[in-house]
């Protein structure tokens, strides 16, 4: 897997190695909040997650000299925080360790079953209450709507929240998410799908 770093990544890596504070601040602002969400997948409290993020960044600084650029910089950062959090989660000996993720990928439909016609109907499984079209995208993009979307994402279960944050807020590819979190393609997609479906539902409610 021979990958070349993007020019921007390369600049940030060089900056970090040189001890340039602006490079550190740029990276921290770009990815720090997302990394916190990844930590929250594996540990039980916000306070511990913050400690994990701090520990992970210390790991990043210690390891940056050896970073070879075989993955993108952000994949590498997120792998470090995920691994730090997993270790911490195990140490915490939580009663629900990684199966937290299993619960979130379980058999939960994206849309409420009562939105669809039953098996005795002429069009079983088709919409009984079909989604209506929304206002054009331009009109959706108001501050209030964005705040509402941010709130809904914040309220998602941890793994769904982390995956939608990486894919849709931070623009990771599915491959980058899978590599960062050691998720299978399928689990990654199920988590993303559940997350988007919930945010969509909330928006639908809000548009009414």
């Amino acid at each position: 897997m021979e990958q070349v770093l993007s020019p921007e990544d390369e600049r940030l890596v060089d900056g970090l190695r040189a001890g340039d504070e602006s490079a550190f601040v740029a990276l921290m602002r770009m990815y720090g909040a997302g990394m916190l969400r990844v930590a929250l997948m594996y540990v039980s409290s916000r306070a511990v997650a913050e400690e994990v993020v701090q520990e992970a960044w210390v790991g990043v600084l210690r390891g940056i000299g050896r970073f070879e650029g075989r993955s993108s910089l952000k994949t590498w950062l997120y792998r470090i925080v995920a691994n730090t959090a997993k270790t911490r989660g195990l140490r915490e000996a939580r009663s629900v360790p990684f199966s937290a993720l299993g619960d979130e990928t379980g058999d939960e439909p994206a849309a409420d079953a009562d939105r669809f016609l039953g098996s005795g109907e002429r069009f079983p499984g088709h919409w009984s209450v079909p989604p209506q079209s929304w206002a054009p995208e331009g009109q959706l993009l108001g501050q209030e709507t964005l705040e509402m979307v941010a709130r809904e994402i914040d309220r998602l279960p941890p793994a769904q929240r982390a995956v939608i944050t990486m894919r849709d807020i931070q623009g990771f590819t599915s491959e980058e998410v899978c590599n960062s979190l050691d998720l299978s393609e399928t689990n990654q997609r199920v988590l993303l799908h559940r997350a988007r479906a919930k945010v969509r539902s909330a928006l639908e409610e809000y548009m009414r």
Partner: protein
Amino acid sequence: MRLDRELACQEVVELMTAYLDDVLDPLDRERFEEHLVFCDGCSNYLEQMRATIVLAGHVSLELPPALEERLLEAFRGWRGS
């Protein structure tokens, strides 16, 4: 009763993310699009998933200021060491 080839809306909805990631096999992709031709409800749902993605893309994330402060201290400590 179900048709041989038919995808019901309930199934189409579950395939939306795979469709948007372009990972459906050709037959499922064809059945999916075939469904969209006649189903306004699913076409709307798909548009809404796209709108949701666009909206999420405009959300900005911020670190809690106290954590940012701690991380900066850690950085300065590392640089000074």
